[in-house]
């Protein structure tokens, strides 16, 4: 049987990259905040490791911890999030994203309200089904589907058909 330390190391190596990406987008692209809440989340996971009895549920468990950690951080520093300069964020991202459509999609994701962005991140980064997202977010499955539907429709509306139209770009 693996020791507690080994289990923790496995969690870190197995899930830190996905958790960081999830945190990055939850934190509006703020790298320092994302790293901060990832580290805090793993510290909480370390303290509560005995609660994790099913290794297959580790990712959902860690993302739930991270969501709570982000909520705590949001409560503490609510003022930090006021008047976010999305153009500024998008401009920084532009250095990485070389294609205009990718840039627009990034911007659109950052403009989504947290209630819509979060299930989208859990689906795209976590790879969770609607049923699993419903459990993580403590929502009904129908509500998750509705939020995902609206989030994607909003992205399509904001980005425009030229950016994500399968016929024009990928056909």
């Amino acid at each position: 049987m693996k020791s507690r330390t080994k289990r923790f190391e496995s969690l870190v190596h197995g899930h830190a990259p996905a958790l960081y990406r999830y945190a990055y987008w939850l934190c509006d692209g703020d790298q320092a905040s994302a790293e901060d809440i990832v580290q805090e989340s793993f510290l909480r996971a370390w303290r509560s490791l005995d609660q994790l009895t099913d290794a297959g549920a580790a990712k959902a468990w860690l993302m739930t911890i991270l969501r709570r950690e982000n909520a705590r951080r949001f409560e503490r520093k609510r003022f930090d999030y006021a008047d976010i300069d999305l153009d500024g964020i998008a401009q920084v991202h532009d250095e990485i994203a070389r294609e205009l459509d990718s840039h627009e999609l990034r911007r659109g994701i950052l403009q989504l309200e947290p209630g819509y962005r979060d299930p989208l991140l859990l689906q795209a980064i976590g790879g969770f089904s609607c049923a699993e997202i419903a459990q993580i977010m403590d929502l009904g499955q129908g509500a998750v589907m509705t939020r995902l539907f609206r989030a994607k429709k909003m992205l399509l509306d904001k980005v425009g058909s030229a950016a994500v139209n399968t016929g024009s770009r990928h056909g």
Partner: protein
Amino acid sequence: MDDLELLRRCYAEPNNADSEFRAALATRPGAARAATQAQQLDRDISKVLAEVEYPAGLEGRIILRADLRAARRPSISRLLPLSLVAAILLTLGAALRYISLPQYGSIGDEAVAHVYREIAHLDHQLEVTDASMDRLMRKVGIRRIGQLDKLRFAALCPSGQGSIMHLVLAGERGPVTVLYMPQRQIGAITEIADSRFHGRAYPKTHGSLAVIGELGEPLERIHQLVDAAVDWRA
């Protein structure tokens, strides 16, 4: 299944294998097109969300912080392997970064860049035990001989030239970053200038010590505090 429900499913989970959903798609071309568009959108979203630069050495820092936190408990002995793994990870991280990191022109550039890269640590208020500090200092080849009363964060960080000991102490005008860079030799005290911070780098026996604080922070006091608590010749 009515049209609205079908459309909702198309966008929410276009790859869902539910038989009723698949059957509905097969008989309604408009919905099938919507599902195809949603699948493409999902691929685009996943691609964009993955375009995030992952911080080098993060996993090592996570393990090290867990180690530092756990070290406050009486059962420290069972966590020693964690320290070893963290040290190995940090060393590996440092090696990898050596390949990809830009070479900084001066010790001031390197130190200030490090402060900005890890600026979140300025807000930390961790309890750091003497035992943890002893281990940290041993890893960079120095020895603790006194107390660092104003300490609020301590960690080893990978750098292009080996591990850096990264401390944050409470100053008069805010947090003060102290970086001990064992591989970095300088011949004389060097001033560090930046739009937000100012600092000074001091030559030590086997490396150098950078002290960086907010503009107006009396740095010499912090330097003396650290100097009195460390044997640099160890």
